[in-house]
């Protein structure tokens, strides 16, 4: 049977506020347990929440970035469930009146096609604490530092039809929230987590099949793999005539499988009701418009500008604008080089290769953008060739100094003096008379293949410093005996 995959995603993004959503405790990853809590976060009787202004502003920014209706009146609601890392017995969230309403994103796939993914809503809510199950004499340890950390939960429509599309969408959300500076985007530390709702239906059928929800997947790669394994699992069951059970599942990256979380049947009975401790949040049009006017350039806008202003291809523009740090690096370097194509090639090529090898983000690149630009300028003005530039980049990476310092110290300046190149070539021709005679006896086609040998000899003799653009024509001339 030909199955169609239907996916909707819920993405939890942790907002980069200094203090918590409802209290004045610090927010931060990796602090000593329970050192960032207050009476409010601990759910002490009588402690009342006060809403963080900055979390509100960030949520409205996001709403604008996805072309959404902003909830001019939004209401906090209590989502009730019992778990020891949720001391109040409810999570303060939003239900009927979220801060961000319907919006959408146009997502570009690797093959260049674009699909529009609807976003149902995005609402503000508080995170819970952490349960540590290991090593406490058969007991569970509770750390409430994360309790009341602000989250923006972004809920998509079931518009996604493949694992690739899901990953492209999550990457786009990641790129938007980091551009806006409202989330650090650190998935390994849980700043962005994704729940995947997935079902299959026979191609052409209108009704959705029964879905499962895979909880808390925290990397792009795992999202893709979790989707593939879950599609396979559901297809196997359906092809055997079985039925999918609606349930919550966990993805295990080590075994590359999803498994049921054994949720109790009534686990989803959250009995939402408006939170009596918090009043409705009412926004003015001026407030909402001011935030819209102050939005930074978004990834899609930047990609468009890179094409119009710098003449980059659509592909290059998209790659470079996918992360704000990479885009900034490119623009800073290009301000020095003033050759967007050359700069783009080197940022996406050699620099990205080194970053990948060292598993570094561009934010932590040991060579800063200006120094990188200065290296490219030396290719441009023919001081060095591309091959030498790669070696110099490695040396800069290892902290040996600026491009010019390394060129000077290692004597890497390219030889561009015609006389010097001619002298070098003459020496090589004298030392290889047999090859020269063979060359002269061959026809044009064969000659083209044989010239490589001589170029290699020249580059070797010059220790890579001869300008290849100059060597070739002079060599051909001299081989012909002209």
């Amino acid at each position: 049977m030909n199955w169609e995959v239907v996916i909707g995603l819920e993405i939890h993004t942790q907002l980069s506020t200094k203090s918590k959503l409802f209290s004045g405790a610090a927010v931060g990853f990796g602090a000593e347990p329970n050192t960032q809590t207050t009476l409010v976060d601990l759910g002490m009787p009588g402690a009342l929440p006060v809403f963080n202004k900055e979390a509100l502003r960030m949520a409205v920014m996001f709403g604008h970035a996805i072309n959404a209706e902003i909830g001019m009146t939004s209401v906090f609601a209590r989502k009730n469930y019992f778990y020891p890392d949720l001391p109040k017995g409810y999570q303060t969230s939003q239900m009927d009146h979220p801060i961000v309403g319907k919006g959408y994103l146009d997502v570009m796939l690797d093959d260049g096609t674009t699909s529009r993914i609807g976003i149902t809503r995005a609402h503000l809510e508080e995170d819970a604490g952490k349960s540590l199950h290991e090593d406490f004499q058969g007991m569970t340890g509770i750390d409430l530092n994360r309790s009341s950390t602000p989250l923006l939960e972004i809920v998509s429509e079931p518009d996604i039809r493949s694992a690739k599309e899901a990953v492209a969408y999550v990457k786009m959300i990641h790129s938007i929230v980091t551009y806006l500076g409202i989330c650090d985007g650190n998935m390994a530390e849980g700043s962005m987590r994704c729940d995947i709702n997935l079902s299959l239906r026979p191609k052409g059928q209108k009704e959705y099949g029964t879905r499962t929800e895979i909880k808390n997947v925290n990397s792009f790669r795992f999202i893709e793999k979790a989707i593939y394994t879950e599609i396979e699992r559901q297809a196997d069951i359906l092809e055997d005539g079985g039925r999918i059970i609606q349930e919550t599942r966990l993805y295990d990256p080590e075994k590359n499988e999803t498994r049921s979380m054994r949720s109790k049947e009534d686990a989803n009975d959250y009995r939402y009701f408006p939170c009596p401790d918090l009043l409705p949040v009412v926004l003015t049009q001026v407030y909402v418009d001011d935030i819209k006017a102050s939005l930074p350039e978004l990834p899609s806008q930047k990609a468009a500008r890179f094409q119009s202003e710098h003449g980059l291809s659509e592909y290059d523009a998209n790659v470079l604008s996918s992360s704000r740090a990479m885009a900034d690096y490119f623009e800073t370097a290009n301000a020095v080089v003033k050759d967007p194509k050359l700069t783009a090639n080197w940022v996406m090529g050699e620099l990205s290769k080194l970053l990948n090898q060292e598993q570094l983000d561009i934010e932590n690149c040991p060579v800063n953008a200006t120094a990188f630009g200065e290296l490219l300028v030396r290719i441009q003005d023919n001081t060095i060739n591309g091959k030498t530039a790669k070696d110099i980049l490695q040396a800069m990476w290892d902290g040996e100094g600026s491009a010019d310092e390394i060129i000077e110290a290692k004597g890497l300046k390219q030889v561009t003096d015609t006389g010097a190149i001619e002298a070098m070539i003459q020496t090589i021709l004298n030392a290889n008379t047999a090859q020269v005679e063979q060359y002269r006896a061959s026809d044009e086609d064969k000659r083209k293949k044989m010239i490589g040998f001589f170029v290699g000899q020249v580059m070797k003799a010059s220790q890579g410093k001869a300008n290849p653009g100059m060597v070739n024509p002079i060599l051909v001339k001299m081989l012909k005996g002209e």
Partner: protein
Amino acid sequence: MSIDKQGVQKIAHLARLALTDEDVDQYQHSLSSVLALVEQMQSVNTDGVEPLSNPLEMTQRLREDKVTEENRRDAFLANAAQTEAGLFLVPKVID
């Protein structure tokens, strides 16, 4: 409208309340009369009336995004039945 015994037991479970059979009978009776009152209220025509989320005619005040609280872990942990390594300890939760 009334609520049956299973309904009472389900609500009690969700609220983590342990009820005796006698309690269940009593709650079945009192919750049913609450529901009867709700039913009566539902006969009122509320067309065009916005749902009330708070009886106060006020809107939420906002707080500056500043860290105003310091670490008071020792005081907080002093209230707990059992602690270790800065953590609150609770009976093992398996889920």
